[in-house]
C-alpha cells in the first residue's frame, strides 16, 4: 500500500503542471493582433478597443476568433470575444459563447457550447490540449461598459501592437471629444511606454493636433496641424519622424513649419554608448524658401555632446559648429566651440541638512571672422560654479522656509571676468488643503571687469549659460546691461489653488528693483507685474491653459500682447 502511494506521488510529481508556470507577465513581442468588424471603436480613457458586428480577430499566432463583440484592453493586454464565437486554430475549429486571451500570461479561456457548455483553458499557446473544467478567473470575460461613452476613434479595422501602437483604418477621430472628422485613410494611436516616442522636436504653437499615419514597432511618422497666435500666418502644418534603436537610442527628424516659407529643419539624436555614457546630437537648419525651391536664406548649427558618468560626478564634451550661411552669397562664417564640462552630484554639507553642487568647465571658441563680430579669432574660457541649498525648515504658524544660492565665475582670455550670483529665499504656507502661498525674494547679480567684451556662446561649456535662450536655438549670451555691474531684486508673491484635478488656478505678483537703470523704454524690466494662469478640463482628455500678464502701465504697456492659450491632452 505504501509503495502504491509512493508511486502515485512520484507520478504526480513527474506530471507536467504547465499551469504552475511563471504567472508573472511575460514579454509579448510586437506581433500584431488584427481586428475587423462592422464597427471598431477606441475609447481612450479606458484604453480599450471595442469591435461590434461580424467581428473577426486574428491572434498574433495566426489563430482566428469570430463573434458578435470583441474588446481589446491595451492595458491588460487581453482580447475578449463574446457572442456566437467560433475559434479557428491549427488544432481544430470550435464554437462557443466566449473567448478571452491574456497574452502577457499566455492563458486563453474558452467557453464552448458544442456539444455542450464547458470551460476550456489553453495554456502557453497550445491549442491542441485544452485543460477542460479548469477554474477560470471570475473576470476573465468581463466586458467594459461603454453605454454612455463616446469613442475617440472609429473605424472598421485595427492592427494592434500591445506594447506600442494601434493602427485604425479607416479612422474618424472625435476632435475635442465631440466633433468626428471625416473618415481618414489611417490613424495610428501611439501608447508606447518608451518615452523616446515623445521626444518633440517641434517648437512653438499653442495648439498641436498630431495625425500619425505610419507606425512600426520602432518608428512613427506624423503630420502636425498647428496653430500659433504669435505668427502672421497662424495655421500651419509640420512633419515629424521618430526612429528608435537599441535600448535608449532615437533619432527624430522634423520640418516645422512645412507649409510656410520660413522653415526649420530639425534633427535630434541620442544613443546610449554604455550604461554610464551617452551621445547626443542636435542639429537645426533654418531656411527661407517657397516649398522646396532654392532657399534665399540658409543658416544652421550642429551640437554634439558626449556624456560620461563618473563615481560622484559626470563630464561632458560639447562641440558646436555654427553656420552663418550655407549659400554662396555672404561670408562663410562658421564659428566653432569645443568645451569640456564637469558637474558634481549633489552632496550633503556635513550633517547640516544643506546640500551643495560644484561645476566647472573650459572651452575654446574659434571664429575666423572674429568672435561676435569683433577681430579676435580665438578665445578661451573656464569657469567654476557652486550651488548651495537648504532643506525646507518648518517655521511658526505652519510656514516653511528654504533657500538656495548659486555662484559662478568665468574667466575669459580677452581678458575678462564675469561673475554671477543668484540668491533665493522662500517662505511658504498651505492655507487650505488646496491652496498654497509662496513668498520669495530673489536677488541676481552679474558683474564683469570689462562690460563691452561679451560674445556669442553657442554651448554651455563656456560657462556662460544663455539666458534666455534665443528663439532659433542658438543661444546668445549677453550681460543684461551695458555697465559692468547689475543687480536685480525680485519680490514675488505667488499662490495656487487646485480644488480638483480638473481645475487649477495660479497667480503671481512681482516687484522688481533693477540697477543701475530701470527706465521704461531705456533699460530694465517692468517694476510691477501680475500674472494669472488658469488650467481647466474641457473634455475628458483635453485641458485648456489660459494665462495673461499685466504691467501696470510700464512705458505704456498694460497687458501682455496676447492671452497665452494652450490646449493639451492628458
Amino acid at each position, binding site marked *: 500500500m505504501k509503495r502504491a502511494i509512493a508511486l502515485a506521488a512520484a507520478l504526480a510529481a513527474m506530471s507536467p503542471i504547465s499551469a504552475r508556470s511563471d504567472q508573472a507577465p511575460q514579454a509579448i513581442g510586437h506581433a500584431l493582433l488584427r481586428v475587423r468588424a462592422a464597427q471598431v471603436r477606441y475609447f481612450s480613457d479606458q484604453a480599450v478597443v471595442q469591435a461590434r458586428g461580424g467581428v473577426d480577430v486574428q491572434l498574433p499566432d495566426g489563430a482566428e476568433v469570430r463573434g*458578435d463583440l470583441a474588446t481589446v484592453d491595451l492595458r491588460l493586454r487581453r482580447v475578449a470575444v463574446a457572442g456566437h464565437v467560433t475559434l479557428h486554430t491549427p488544432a481544430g475549429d470550435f464554437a462557443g*459563447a*466566449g473567448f478571452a486571451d491574456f497574452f502577457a500570461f499566455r492563458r486563453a479561456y474558452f467557453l464552448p457550447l458544442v456539444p455542450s457548455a464547458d470551460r476550456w483553458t489553453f495554456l502557453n499557446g497550445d491549442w491542441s490540449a485544452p485543460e477542460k473544467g479548469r477554474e477560470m478567473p471570475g473576470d476573465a470575460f468581463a466586458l*467594459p461598459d461603454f453605454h454612455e461613452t463616446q469613442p475617440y476613434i472609429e473605424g472598421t479595422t485595427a492592427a494592434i501592437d500591445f506594447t506600442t501602437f494601434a493602427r485604425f483604418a479607416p479612422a474618424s477621430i472625435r476632435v475635442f471629444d465631440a466633433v468626428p472628422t471625416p473618415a481618414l485613410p489611417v490613424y495610428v494611436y501611439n501608447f508606447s511606454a518608451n518615452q523616446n516616442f515623445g521626444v518633440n522636436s517641434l517648437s512653438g504653437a499653442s495648439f498641436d493636433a498630431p495625425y500619425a499615419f505610419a507606425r512600426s514597432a520602432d518608428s512613427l511618422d506624423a503630420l502636425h496641424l498647428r496653430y500659433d497666435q504669435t505668427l502672421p500666418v497662424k495655421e500651419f502644418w509640420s512633419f515629424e519622424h521618430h526612429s528608435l534603436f537599441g535600448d535608449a537610442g532615437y533619432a527624430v527628424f522634423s520640418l516645422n513649419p512645412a507649409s510656410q516659407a520660413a522653415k526649420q529643419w530639425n534633427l535630434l539624436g541620442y544613443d546610449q554608448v554604455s550604461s554610464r555614457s551617452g551621445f547626443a546630437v542636435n542639429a537645426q537648419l533654418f531656411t527661407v524658401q517657397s516649398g522646396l525651391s532654392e532657399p534665399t536664406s540658409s543658416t544652421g548649427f550642429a551640437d554634439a555632446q558626449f556624456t560620461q558618468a563618473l563615481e560622484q560626478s559626470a563630464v561632458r564634451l560639447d562641440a558646436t559648429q555654427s553656420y552663418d550661411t550655407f549659400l554662396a552669397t555672404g561670408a562663410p562664417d562658421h564659428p566653432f566651440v569645443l568645451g569640456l564640462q564637469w558637474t558634481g552630484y549633489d552632496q550633503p554639507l556635513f550633517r547640516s541638512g544643506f546640500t551643495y553642487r560644484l561645476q566647472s568647465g573650459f572651452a575654446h571658441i574659434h571664429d575666423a571672422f572674429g568672435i561676435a563680430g569683433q577681430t579676435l579669432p580665438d578665445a578661451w574660457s573656464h569657469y567654476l560654479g557652486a550651488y548651495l*541649498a537648504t532643506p525646507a525648515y518648518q517655521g511658526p504658524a505652519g510656514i516653511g522656509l528654504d533657500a538656495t544660492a548659486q555662484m559662478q565665475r568665468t574667466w575669459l582670455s580677452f581678458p575678462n571676468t564675469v561673475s554671477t550670483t543668484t540668491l533665493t529665499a522662500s517662505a511658504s504656507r498651505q492655507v487650505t488643503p488646496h491652496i498654497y502661498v*509662496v513668498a520669495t525674494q530673489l536677488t541676481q547679480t552679474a558683474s564683469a571687469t570689462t562690460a563691452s567684451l561679451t560674445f556669442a556662446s553657442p554651448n554651455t561649456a563656456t560657462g556662460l549659460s544663455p539666458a534666455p535662450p534665443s528663439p532659433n536655438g542658438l543661444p546668445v549670451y549677453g550681460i543684461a546691461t551695458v555697465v559692468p555691474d547689475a543687480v536685480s531684486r525680485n519680490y514675488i508673491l505667488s499662490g495656487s489653488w487646485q480644488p480638483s*484635478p480638473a481645475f487649477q488656478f495660479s497667480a503671481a505678483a512681482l516687484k522688481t528693483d533693477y540697477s543701475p537703470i530701470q527706465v521704461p523704454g531705456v533699460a530694465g524690466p517692468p517694476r510691477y507685474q501680475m500674472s494669472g494662469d488658469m488650467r481647466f478640463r474641457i473634455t475628458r482628455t483635453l485641458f485648456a491653459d489660459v494665462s495673461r500678464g499685466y504691467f501696470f502701465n510700464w512705458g505704456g504697456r498694460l497687458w501682455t500682447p496676447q492671452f497665452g492659450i494652450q490646449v493639451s491632452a492628458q
Partner: protein
Amino acid sequence: MIALVIIISLVVGQASHAYGQTNLATNGQAMLAPIQTSSATPIPQASQTPPPDVAATPAATLPRYSGQLLDIERGYVVFSTGDALRLASDVSIVDDDTGVAPTYAIEPGLYAIAIVAPDTGLVTSLRFAHSPRPNATPIADVPRALVSAASSPQPNPDLAPPKTRYTSKLSASVQVTITVLVPPDTPFGADVYIATDTSGWNAQAIKMQRVDGRHFRVVSQLTGGTDFHYLFTRGSWATVERERSGLQRQARELAIEGGDALEVAATIYRWADLP
C-alpha cells in the same frame, strides 16, 4: 432539443428585438399593457398598471441571478463569469425597468437577471438592462448544480487564493499625491509638469502645484490597477528631467494597487537644458 428551439442573433440589428416580441406574444403579456382611453395624459394608477410581466407570473419570488451577458445561444444564456445556464423553451425576454420587450438589441455586455425555475433548473425569464442589477444574487454565487458544464471542475493553480468572482479591489479610486523636489538651479518662475505614456508623452499633460521654493505636488484620483510611466518636465521635451549624470533617464513607473491613498515622493536631479 432546447438548443434547437432558441437561436438568437446577437449581431447588432433587429433580430433580437423581434425575438423579445415573439416571446411576449407567446406569453400573452402584451395584453396587459396599459391602454390609453383618452387623448389627455393618463395618470398612472398603481392598481391598474402593474408591471405586466410581474403581474403575469410569480417570477419575482423565484431565484434571481444577475450578471453581465456574454451570449444567448444554443439554449444557453452565458454570463461573463463563464457560467452557462440552460434556457426554458418558452423563456421570456423583457427590459428590467419597463417590464416589456426591450427596444434595444440584445448583445454581449448588457446586464441580465436570470430567473430560474427551481423544479427544472431552467431559466424561464431574462430581464435586461444597461446597468448592473443589484437586486438579485450575483451570478458568481449561483448553485453549481444550475450551471451547465460538461467537464468536472478542476482547480486552477494560477488562482491563489481562488477568485470566484471579480472583486472591486483593483477598481477602487485611490487618491495619489506625487510630490517632487526640483534641482537647485531650477528657474524660479518655472512650472513643473508630468508627461505620461498614457498622454502620448505630452510634456504638459499634468501640471503640478508649487508647494514651496523647491517642491511641487499634484493630487489625483486614479483607479486601482492603473499602471503608467511618467517623467517630469518644465513644459517641453527640451526641459525633461535627466539622470544625475545628465544622461537620459528611464521613465518612472507607478502602479496603483489599491488602498485609500498613495504618497509618492520623487527627486529631480538634473534638467536636460541646464548644465
